[in-house]
């Protein structure tokens, strides 16, 4: 479109002007149709509308000079109209954006994988702990915590494991060195359950009490696929006037449905824990087979999940040493405890308990 000759105009009647301007407009439209890319559009603008060397400026200068006085006005109107057409074409070209060809040159492979930012994954144990505490928060349970290194008194004695009692044999204990010369009740050990926090809470807070106690505990056990010397527990304690065994049943039935789905059923078996009486083990209907029986539930349709019971009056008696309001004739309560690893293993299909503590990026990354 560059350097096109400027046609001479000799006649200025309507027909001649029609033809002359028609030719110019066809040229402008033809040029516009071929526009390709922003640079071309800009060149088109300069070519046609440039203030100094624009084609319209040049043509109008030449033709107006040559025109007789009476034709100048009509000529001017025609130029304005043509200018509007060109401007319209320009707007159109700009609005349409770059041509398909120019876009095609910018093609990328959208099938290459996206660049991902790594999102850190919360540990499955933290996640499960949180889920459990949330369920109980909705039932009015606050979170209580306590030290991982405990005294014999808090871990055993006040939980109604008297010194020398065979029940102590069921919880092999890791102890701090050099305790032999200290009185038994002051000896330091790694807590074997989060139950000591029950007592620590009752000592500082008169009833009513509703707490869940998440935490790390330790036992001197050999490690295998389902046992680890380090594991986590959530215990719960509810003490008030008129707390009953049926309340314990209802609370845990509700909690298990909240954790594992509303179709889950619970059943309770007599059991034994020194710090509760009556004591119970709780089974839930197998979450894998719905109770029909499968490998995971050893064909029984049930999975044992937690221990619980009514708080033993002997435990209240220990609490009453500091808070007389724990009078077992006036108040009652229940406690329950569950292993977090076991629940996490069930929920997330983890087969080796040791994976929780290995820090393996491949394992942890699955929980993002």
């Amino acid at each position, binding site marked *: 479109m560059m350097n096109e000759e400027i046609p001479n105009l000799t006649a200025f009647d309507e027909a001649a002007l029609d033809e002359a301007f028609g030719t110019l407009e066809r040229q402008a439209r033809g040029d516009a149709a071929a526009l390709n890319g922003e640079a071309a559009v800009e060149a088109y603008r300069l070519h046609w509308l440039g203030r100094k060397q624009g084609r319209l400026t040049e043509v109008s200068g030449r033709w107006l000079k040559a025109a007789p006085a009476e034709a100048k006005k009509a000529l001017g109107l025609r130029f304005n109209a043509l200018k509007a057409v060109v401007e319209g074409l320009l707007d159109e070209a700009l609005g349409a954006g770059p041509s398909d060809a120019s876009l095609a040159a910018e093609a990328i492979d959208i099938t290459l994988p996206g660049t991902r930012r*790594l999102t*850190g*994954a919360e540990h499955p144990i*933290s996640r499960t702990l949180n889920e459990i505490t949330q369920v109980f928060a909705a*039932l009015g349970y606050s979170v209580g915590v306590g030290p991982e290194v405990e005294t014999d008194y808090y871990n055993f004695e006040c939980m109604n494991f008297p010194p020398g009692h065979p029940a102590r044999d069921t919880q092999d204990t890791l102890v701090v060195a050099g305790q032999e010369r200290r009185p038994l009740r002051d000896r330091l050990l790694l807590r074997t359950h989060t139950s000591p926090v029950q007592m620590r809470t009752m000592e500082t807070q008169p009833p009513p009490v509703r707490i869940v106690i998440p935490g790390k505990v330790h036992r001197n056990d050999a490690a295998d696929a389902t046992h680890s010397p380090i594991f986590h527990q959530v215990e719960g304690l509810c003490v008030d006037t008129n707390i009953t*065994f049926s309340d314990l049943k209802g609370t845990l039935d509700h909690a298990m449905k909240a954790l594992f789905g509303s179709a889950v059923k619970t059943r309770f078996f007599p059991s034994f824990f020194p710090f509760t*009486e009556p004591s119970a083990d709780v089974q839930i209907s197998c979450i894998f087979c719905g109770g029909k029986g499968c490998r995971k539930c050893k064909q029984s349709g049930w999975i044992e999940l937690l221990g619980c019971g009514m708080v033993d009056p002997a435990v209240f008696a220990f609490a009453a040493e500091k808070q007389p309001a724990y009078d077992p004739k006036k108040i009652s309560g229940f406690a329950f405890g569950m292993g977090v690893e076991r629940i996490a293993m069930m929920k997330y299909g983890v087969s080796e308990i040791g994976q929780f*503590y290995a820090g*393996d990026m491949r394992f942890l990354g699955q929980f*993002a």
Partner: protein
Amino acid sequence: MKILTKWLRAYLPGLAVDDARLAEDLTLRGIAVEGIYDLGPGNGSLFEMDITTNRVDAMNHYGVAREAAAIYGLALPGLDFALPEARQAAEPFSVRIEAEGECGRFTARVLRGIAIGDSRDWFAGAEVATYFALLEQKRISNAVDASNFAWLAMGQPTHAFDLDKIEGGIVVRRARKGERLKTLDGVERMLDPEDLIVADHAKPLGLAGVMGGWDTMITPETTNVLVEAAWFEPMAVRGTARRHGLHTDASHRFERGADFNAGPVASALVSRILLANGGWIEGELVDVRVAAMEVRTASRKPVALALSEVRRILGTTVDEDGIGAATVEDVLKALGCKLVSQQVGKSASQLHPIAVDDAVWLVTLPSWRLDLEREIDLIEEVARVYGYNRFANTLPAFGEGLRALPWAESEAAVRRTFLAAGFHEAIGSTFCSAAEAALTAPQPGLVVPLGNPLSEEAGVLRPSLAPGMLGMIEGNLHRDVSDVRLFELGTVFSGTTDKVDERPAVAFGAVGSLPEQGPLHPARMVDFHDVKGVVEQVLARFQARAVYFDQFPAEAGLTPEWLHPYRAARVAVEGATVGWFGQLHPREATRHKLKEPVLVGELYLDRLYKLPLRKPIAREISRFQPVRRDFSLVLDESVGWEKIDHALAGLQIPELVDWRVREVFRDPRLGAGEYSLLLGTTFQAVDRTLREEELQSFQTRVVEAVGKAGARLRS
């Protein structure tokens, strides 16, 4: 423990349910049947039991039969083994209990003319042979088999001595210093003065309630036998068993409380089996009892039980009628309790003034249930036999609010920040080795060792999360996972074996390339400043006046030994150290076989948690044009960014809304020990467009300030 249903049914001929149902019903009452094995036609089933330690009374056939009787309301006949008339003894066999606090009852029966050999099948149709075969219990000799049979039948340990090797009579006493005893396992033992022993007038014969002695054991030559069936105090037996590292059936039972009244019955049972091979009884059963012990076991004071208390503890039942007086009475009587009803209107005890709709009993406890002592124990029995699953599911009302842990939000903020920065959360061991502790303890010397560690590598309570973090990083690299970013929120320990302090901490580690890579983006290795950025983000969650990073001269020895002295920073908040991070010391890296530079650090969260969490406050965003000005500076190597940063902060120009390092570069054209830094600044006012003269004046002040800090403009 194994139970034969054939044997159970011998005690309970009226038992109508099949074995599967029996197993289910027992399990639901806490007498758990873990496995059922069919033994073939006419043989019933073998139950593999899992009975809780408080129920030793039910760890035998008669005990399980008693539970079944209670469940189905059947009558259980008592155990009674009639014996032939005894021949007169010249004088009764001498038994003396010296240790009256440890031995409550000792029965001894003299049998003479006994032939030791195969036990003859005698009992209601060859029971020993049948039951032992089904249980795969080896038959050894009539003496041993008799004792085993009594054990399996009723859970009462018994012992048979070769009477002719006993000198004088029996004395139950504590051992004396220097006394020795060879026990049945063939081990020669030095006795402890605390040990409770059965002795004769000259020597120890056995560890009471634990194991008999070698020298008085029954041999094929034995003809005269003394049958012992006794009751020993749990703690005494436990002490002896523990000191000698022995755990036997007998000690298991005595430690958990045997039946005070079972001795004479078991003795009769053993004697009858032995007498089936001939021989006779000489003299009456010698039965020595300690009255004080009998009061604590077989003839305990009755316990008051109120129906209202049963209901207060147990609550609502599915059955609308709930638990009534009849249920309580039926259950407890079936378990061997005797109930005496107290009259309404009178007070049975001070604990229970009886209301009109209440019922109160005085309950006499069976001798075999030492686990029953209190009213609550009886309530548990009622609930247990009634059936736990017959109670309704109710929810207690509550009116209190929730109380959050004071640091819960702060911990959540720290966790969220690390997660958002692409670190996976890990949980590591609570323990580390003494060497690792010495290297990483923030307070050297205050490391707490364990008395019975799981292993040497886990000998102490971790004083720092760093060893665990390094272990996990190492583990990943050894598994060929090369890009690692982990953090752990956990407890660290310090103190002495008398007092242990616990503090929350967070450790973090990174190695390898950053994950924001792909075919279009080259990999970039994580570096010090990547980790510093995360630390800054964590700190930014908290509201603090002064947060800074610094380092100490290597010779000061203040940098933790596990960190590279020139590539580590201390994190200080309000003047206090809240942590350290940086590149792992190359020496440690080599020790852990880590080839890539590892970035690692730890923050002491107890110090951070003292700070309030930063609350976001929105400020107005200016509508006016920001103006950017870059300055190319030349600095001496000794001048760090911090100085320039402070200088600019010190200007306190409100319109200087942002400044940052755009680039740092070394240029050979600069002087020795100099480097170049491109400083980017942004000026913006909230209320106006900045005028050229203002900008000019700001720029001049910036140049002046950085000049004072040691920078010159690059020409």
